[in-house]
């Protein structure tokens, strides 16, 4: 039961610390997680933008290359001369020029000038122009005418203008003028592989890719172009922003970042799947939970040890206190730890010692008090009697009754020896009766025939233990307050017998009897006069010694002042009964 209580204390320490750590983690985790995710998202956007700019730069390198090549060709004297269709034919020189230019750029597939009259010059030796198609119907040609001398860029396409060749290219076409008139079209084909390589080389840890939308809205490049075309994959072209600068749109966890190239009209788009970031974060979640569990375990262990260190001494202290409660004043709390509880234990120890001392002191005082009281009570008897006896001795000496003086003095001597000789509080009834007898002898000598006495004690109780000097005061009272007042002869009977494990000692007299007030309890035996002193002393001593179950009872025929008892009246009017436990050692 004590365990259960201390268990509460330890458990509350444990659970409080666990609660705190779990709460901290519970708050910390979502906050950290959301901060981390937003940082991750921000980082990925900036990373994406960086990548996108890089791709843009690479693509622009090719685009700008094509434009500068076309600029060079347009201004080239040989070309100008060739376009004017002057004689002599400068096509060989033009071819050389084209070869020179193409030589610097191995990624150029075709550099072809188509003259309006159907003649053409290419940088390479060709099988010829594809006879089955009229190139003037091709969009690159028509767009170039429409663009009025500005370079036009196609999407990715199959170049079918050269017989027997079907290359995937990006085409730039530009209308050529001679003397203000349309003289031909320049076609520059860039190997599509170049663009595809740039784009496919960009991979964001499998969580993103890059695609390019041409000015005509068709896909220039897409890593899964064929799947997109056949509808197996769909691309969110609505997410593409056709405006200058880099813009990001986020939808369904996908970040679409578009970058428009003003020269080509292409939009480079990077797609980044932030859902993949979440899958990266699952590791973080596992890690976090592991850390959480780790800290919880650590906290548990630490608080277990700490609480044990705290509660163990408290338990010890509690056990000591219980022991103390049961009355073991010698208990000592042995607190081995070094903290406030130890101080508490020290205080407890000091307290127990103090209480123990106090109790011992109290007992001692009580004992001393009792002894002194008893002694005082015993002592109270002496002067009373001594006056009277000494008065009697004086009186007898005066009348010359030497023999009686000797006898009386002898009895008095015995009496005093009895009171002083034995330090023990308890004496046998016989000793007490002897004492009373001696006393009676002295009194008999004083009162002569006026006082008669009889001792009537069962032999069986002679060896019973009684408090000394309890009968004599009763006899004394019977003499002074009962018999002495009587005109005729007085009689005092002292008897003792056993009754139900009690020793009953009766002192009866035929004297005048008690005051009415004392008998009915309206007055006490307060020592207002000599009579009260004796009875209350004896009563107090009996009660002190044997407890409240024992004491004195008085039976008396009420004193009647109007008709005092007559001479020769032997009716025993008063009986004082002492009730004591019957003990024989």
């Amino acid at each position, binding site marked *: 039961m004590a365990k259960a209580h201390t268990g509460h204390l330890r458990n509350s320490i444990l659970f409080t610390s666990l609660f705190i750590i779990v709460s901290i983690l519970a708050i910390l985790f979502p906050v950290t997680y959301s901060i981390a995710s937003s940082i991750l998202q921000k980082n990925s956007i900036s990373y994406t933008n960086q990548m996108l700019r890089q791709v843009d730069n690479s693509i622009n390198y090719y685009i700008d290359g094509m434009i500068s090549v076309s600029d060079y060709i347009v201004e080239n004297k040989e070309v100008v001369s060739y376009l004017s269709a002057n004689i002599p034919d400068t096509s060989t020189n033009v071819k050389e020029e084209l070869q020179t230019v193409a030589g610097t750029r191995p990624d150029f597939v075709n550099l072809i000038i188509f003259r309006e009259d159907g003649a053409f010059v290419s940088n390479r030796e060709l099988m010829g122009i594809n006879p*089955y*198609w009229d190139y003037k119907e091709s969009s690159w040609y028509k767009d170039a005418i429409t663009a009025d001398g500005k370079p036009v860029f196609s999407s990715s396409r199959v170049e079918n203008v050269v017989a027997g060749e*079907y290359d995937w290219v990006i085409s730039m076409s530009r209308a050529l003028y001679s003397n203000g008139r349309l003289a031909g079209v320049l076609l520059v084909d860039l190997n599509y592989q170049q663009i595809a390589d740039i784009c496919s080389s960009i991979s964001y840890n499998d969580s993103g890719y890059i695609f390019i939308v041409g000015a005509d809205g068709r896909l220039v490049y897409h890593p899964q172009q*064929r799947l997109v075309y*056949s509808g*197996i994959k769909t691309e969110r072209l609505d997410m593409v922003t056709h405006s200058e600068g880099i813009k990001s749109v986020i939808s369904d966890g996908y970040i679409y970042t578009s970058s428009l190239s003003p020269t080509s009209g292409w939009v480079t788009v990077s797609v980044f799947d932030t859902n993949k970031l979440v899958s990266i974060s699952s590791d973080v979640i596992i890690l976090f939970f*592991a850390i959480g569990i*780790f800290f919880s375990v650590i906290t548990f262990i630490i608080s277990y040890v700490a609480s044990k260190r705290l509660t163990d001494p408290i338990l010890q202290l509690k056990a000591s206190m219980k022991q103390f409660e049961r009355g073991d004043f010698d208990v000592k709390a042995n607190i081995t730890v*070094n903290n406030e509880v130890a101080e508490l234990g020290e205080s407890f120890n000091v307290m127990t010692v103090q209480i123990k001392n106090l109790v011992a002191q109290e007992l001692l005082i009580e004992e001393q008090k009792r002894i002194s009281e008893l002694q005082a009570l015993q002592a109270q008897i002496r002067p009373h009697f001594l006056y009277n006896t000494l008065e009697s001795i004086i009186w007898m000496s005066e009348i010359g009754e030497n023999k009686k003086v000797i006898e009386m003095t002898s009895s008095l001597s015995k009496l005093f020896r009895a009171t002083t000789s034995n330090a023990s509080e308890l004496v046998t009834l016989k000793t007490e009766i002897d004492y009373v007898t001696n006393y009676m002898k002295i009194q008999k000598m004083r009162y002569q025939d006026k006082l008669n006495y009889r001792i009537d004690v069962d032999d069986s109780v002679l060896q019973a233990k009684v408090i000394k000097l309890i009968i004599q005061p009763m006899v004394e009272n019977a003499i002074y307050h009962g018999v002495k007042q009587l005109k005729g002869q007085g009689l005092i009977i002292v008897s003792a017998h056993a009754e139900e494990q009690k020793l009953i000692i009766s002192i009866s007299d035929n004297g005048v009897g008690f005051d009415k007030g004392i008998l009915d309890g309206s007055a006490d035996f307060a020592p207002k006069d000599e009579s009260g002193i004796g009875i209350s002393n004896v009563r107090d001593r009996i009660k002190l010694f044997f407890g409240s179950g024992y004491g004195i009872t008085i039976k008396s025929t009420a004193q009647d002042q109007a008709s005092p008892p007559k001479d020769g009246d032997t009716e025993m009017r008063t009986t004082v009964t002492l009730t004591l436990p019957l003990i024989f050692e």
Partner: protein
Amino acid sequence: MKFLDILGQRGKRIAKVILLVILFAVSIVLITYAAVYKVPSALNTGPTKIIVIGKTTSNIAFWLSLRDGVDVAAKEYGIDYEYWGPDSESDIDTQISLVYQAIAQKPDAIILAATDYGRLAEPAKAIIDAGIPLVTMDSNVYGDDGQIGSCFVATDNVAAGVKAGEAMQALLPAGKKVAVISHQIGTTSSRDRDTGVRQGLGADTFVLPTVDAAGSEETAYELAVKILEDPDIGGIICLNEYSTTGAARALIGAGLSGKVLLVGFDSSPFLNTSMEEGCLNATVIQRPYNMGYLAVVNAIAVLDGKKVDPFYDTGSILVTKDTMYLGENEKLLFPFT
């Protein structure tokens, strides 16, 4: 612990506690690290491995494109694959033995394009019996209870055949006969296309019995030369790329290019030129790239325990000279590698 004496009794105890806590912390961190980084990889016994058995390993455009699709899907889903196949589509025995070799390697799944829908049934059943999921593509295999594989990814060949037949029917002069050259009569693709072609031509058109090129362009050429001897022949329909190529060569050789109609299947640089020239009037192109891609995707779906359709139609497109360079057609006719 002598050096700790300087700390005194109390200090020593604290030092021991700290040491224990540090040891405990380090061990927990190590365990966590292992749990996070090592265990998943330990549980994962390498990437999924799929063996793809095609009809041929030769440089036929169709199969190259299909292999591209397989490759793209494998990269996308992070799986390992091997592409196997006999040199020739007619080498059925080699393909059968390849199937058994594949089973012995215990891959996670097998993708098969059967060179013969009957003879491959037994090996295909062996794949299933070995507990290996089977996805078929291009040409199916059938057992007594029907389709053996979990999923068949292919062109709906009957529908494709109908497109070819209808194109021929639209151009065919009245009263002229049509010949059909199959590439490999035992395959489902041949059988189904033939059925479709005859549907597309309609009951009124006179169609000669289908002849078998048996996996060889040369045979197709010879068969076409023979067919062209008949002056009533108005058109030839060939059921795959090399049979079409053989017939085109025969037409050009006989000077009948553009005069006798030719409708084929699939494409190649040669067939593209033939189409530009007007020799090949129309061709039904499939999406081999998608077929390869989707076969892998479906195989992965089967491995993931997802429900897959028993048949996935990758579709077909009829291409004529006018539509050659339009959108998807351009990509299909001129595979970009």
